[in-house]
């Protein structure tokens, strides 16, 4: 970096992850992130950045470093137990044919 660049010393505003609810009754979705000094400005920045055309009716902002996520290496073992519990699916069960009749 040149001399000019290093003039600006202050740290960057923290990063917030943005989630929005696209419509009434829909689950929240991840939109992206914004930088902001506090929660209030994070909400405003998120609104200006990700909801200029009514993309959302509600917004959550979460400090990015507070999010705990699974890792890609876990992908196999972490989700594996689901595979051998086929009794969690309705296809596992058989019912008398007659019960499916409407009349």
């Amino acid at each position, binding site marked *: *970096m*040149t001399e*000019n*660049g290093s*003039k*600006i010393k*202050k*740290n*960057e*505003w923290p*990063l917030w992850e943005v989630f929005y609810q696209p419509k009434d009754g829909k689950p929240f979705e991840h939109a*992206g*992130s*914004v*930088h902001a*000094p*506090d929660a209030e*400005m994070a909400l405003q920045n998120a609104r*200006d*950045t990700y909801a*200029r*055309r009514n993309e959302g009716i509600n917004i959550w902002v979460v400090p990015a470093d507070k999010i705990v*996520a699974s*890792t*890609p290496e876990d992908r196999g073992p972490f989700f594996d137990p689901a595979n051998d519990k086929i009794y969690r699916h309705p296809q596992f069960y058989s019912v008398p044919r007659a019960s499916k009749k409407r009349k």
Partner: protein
Amino acid sequence: MDEQKQLDAFQKRIDNGETIEPKDRMPDRYRKQLIRMMSQHAHSEIVGMLPEGNWIQRAPSLKRKKVLLAKVQDEAGHGLYIYSAVETLGVTRREVVEDYMYGNAKYSSIFNYPTLTYADICVIGWLVDGAAIVNQTMLARSSYGPYARSMVRICKEESFHKKQGYEMLAKMASGTPEQKKMAQDAVNRWWWPTLMMFGPPDDQSPNSQELIRWGVKSKTNDELRQSFVDMTVMEAKAIGIEIPDPDLKYNHETGHWDFGEVPWDEFWEVIKGNGPMNRERIRARRKAYEEGAWVREAASEYARKKRLEEEKAS
């Protein structure tokens, strides 16, 4: 796993059409190429606000002023979507931003041209945003998830940008002789620089093959350029605008429009920093960044004090 095996495993994921997410294992070179390409793209959105912002206060009517304001605000949004995606690759916003203002990072050469009349604003919407749509529609299928998702968002807004420009230009081109002349003059100046937006010809594009192999891009620069020309010729005809290329001719064999040689010498000069507006653009960006520093500091300080007070109160 040794390096070659890792590379092969990664290539296999790409070839299967899988999406790469931030925490996934990826070759260093893939990460570096993405950081370079995506940050360059983000800078272009931000610097792109300058030539258009130049006309906000002189818009010909309140309607056009509102439209231009909304468009320029969108460009800021586009820059932020992409910066947000770049940051998932492990770089900070500050690093990438300072890298074009004080370092060697590039932005699109198109924004190093001046906007001389309001017709330029029409033409930027029609041609420059039209070209961006061709490029970004491809990138919306990019192998890197955050990049692709930011492109989906951008593409939705980009069609408003193109349409407002095309509508204005059509109006101008059907106006008084002076207005017609102004419209044509702007097209004459922007046509070739727009074709340069797709990057150097395939045989001189060092990054293309690698980016295609990794699924970041799916078409070459020349292919994209051709689809843009094919799309634009009829749009020009429809509004009585002439494309300033005597070699432009429909090729019945290929089904494409053949066009003349792009002035590549000019392109390389602009890339090197010698375009008409390179210095002015960087000067304006540095000024905004440096003069805004106290605002960012003050907001941080305000947030810090508020946090302290809350801690005391509890």
